[in-house]
């Protein structure tokens, strides 16, 4: 049985359709990525899953249970938002404990869980710091810690690597993937970056103008998919000798010094 199932989700604001009949399912322990350009409706889908917004029609099922009408605090889905939203008046430890207290988990169990996951996230020494005393990457880790410590059925990640520098993005991707695999976390990540999507996802759903155009395992996406929008979005993918891949439109062409000289004349 799918851990998370989204069926025919529709959401409109005024005359504009934001989410248009979107359906997908996420298996237990799977990392599912929703990928698409800005304004495609990715964050809106997460908001509909968390219950921050109510859909006009459609259903959200968690472990088979229809949670579409449940208030957001009763849903077992936790979102790590793009801006982290760490509570500024709490330390990292207190931030992490907030969700546990809300779920009536305290004492030794809370202490142990926070200690365990803080070690996994590599931020044990930062537990008594306030968010304002952390760097961007550390804040992201603290937000992930706060989310996973409550062991939600589904972890939702909203553009988790936006705003981080390139080196940090690479490290964070590897860290998040290892954390997800080692702890068997079921997760939905949304991103506009096809690199992030290919690196993190086991399956990727492509969203354009509120419509889910295609859902496929990553391994089936190296060749042309036959979907015009998806193929145009992905461009040419070049496999490397070591089994990796490169998006052709991301390769920086070498600059001819002669051209430079010509330009400067």
């Amino acid at each position: 049985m799918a851990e998370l199932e989204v069926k025919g989700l529709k959401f409109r604001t005024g005359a504009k359709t934001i989410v248009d009949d979107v359906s997908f399912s996420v298996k237990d322990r799977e990392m599912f990525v929703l990928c698409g350009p800005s304004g495609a409706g990715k964050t809106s889908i997460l908001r509909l899953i968390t219950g921050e917004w109510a859909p006009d029609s459609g259903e959200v099922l968690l472990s088979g249970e229809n949670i579409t009408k449940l208030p957001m605090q009763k849903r077992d889905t936790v979102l790590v938002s793009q801006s982290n939203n760490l509570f500024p008046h709490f330390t990292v430890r207190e931030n992490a404990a907030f969700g546990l207290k809300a779920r009536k988990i305290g004492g030794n169990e809370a202490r142990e869980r926070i200690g365990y996951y803080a070690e996994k996230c590599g931020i044990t020494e930062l537990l008594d710091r306030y968010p304002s005393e952390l760097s961007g990457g550390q804040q992201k880790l603290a937000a992930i810690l706060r989310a996973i410590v409550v062991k939600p059925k589904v972890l939702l990640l909203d553009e988790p690597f936006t705003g981080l520098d390139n080196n940090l993005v690479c490290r964070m991707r590897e860290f998040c993937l290892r954390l997800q695999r080692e702890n068997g976390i079921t997760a939905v990540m949304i991103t506009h970056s096809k690199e992030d999507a290919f690196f993190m996802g086991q399956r990727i759903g492509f969203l354009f103008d509120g419509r889910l155009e295609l859902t496929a395992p990553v391994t089936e996406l190296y060749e042309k998919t036959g979907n015009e929008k998806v193929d145009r979005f992905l461009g040419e993918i070049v496999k490397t000798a070591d089994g990796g891949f490169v998006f052709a439109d991301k390769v920086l062409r070498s600059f001819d010094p002669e051209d430079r000289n010509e330009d400067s004349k």
Partner: protein
Amino acid sequence: MKARKVFARILAVLFLIFLLMPFLGMLVFSVFSRWPIDSLLPQTPTFRGFTAFFSKDAGNALSTALFSVAVGLTTLVIGIPAAKGLAGLKGPLKAVLDVILVLPMLLPVVSVSIGSHKLFLAFRLTGSVPVFIMHLYFSLPYAFKILYSAYRALGNSFGVTARNLGAGPVRSFLYVEAPVFLPAYTSAFIMGFVVSYSQYFINLLLGGAKNMNYSVILSQLLTGSDRHLASVYSLMYLLFGGVAVGLAFLVRSLAERRVKYGRA
């Protein structure tokens, strides 16, 4: 750079002088009844004003301050959910709302009060209820403007995150939203309090003899010739108002300390 610093200091000193001068005058005349033009120092020390205040009007000053505290708190109760809900608005509706919300600040108290007085009489509303409603009418826009700006600047994402982590609306408000917005709540309360505390005409028109607030008594003294009495009553006005504002800051600071929640 040095010249700019000196200029800034001169401005600061001038500001302090202009701020303190009337206060110093009040202090002097609160313990002396005369200061003839040909005397170097004030004359005739007296505590007549304090005796009169504590024997006659201290109760009124206290009830006026408490009434305004109630108005300030009510502005918060109404203003917080309203600001939270309306802060998320976008487009032309937001612009219309911005104009509507400042209207009570621009409308003359006299015309609104007289118009409302007729309405209250038609509904047989008398006593302190119409006074309270009118105080609220003039206090709320100022308090709301502060709350609205705070919610527009910070959004409600902290509250949503708390709910997403499993906290109910009450826990989410008390432990996450309120501490984050506490400075705005305090400022909004103080604004609501100050506007209500300084109301004169509303009480004069709608209050009748039973709802005569301290400003009405004070204004009678200020237009009279007894400077000593006027100074004492003005000082007491400042004292009671200052205590209420000070208490608001104290509550804020205590709340900030107590809010350490969730330590595992």
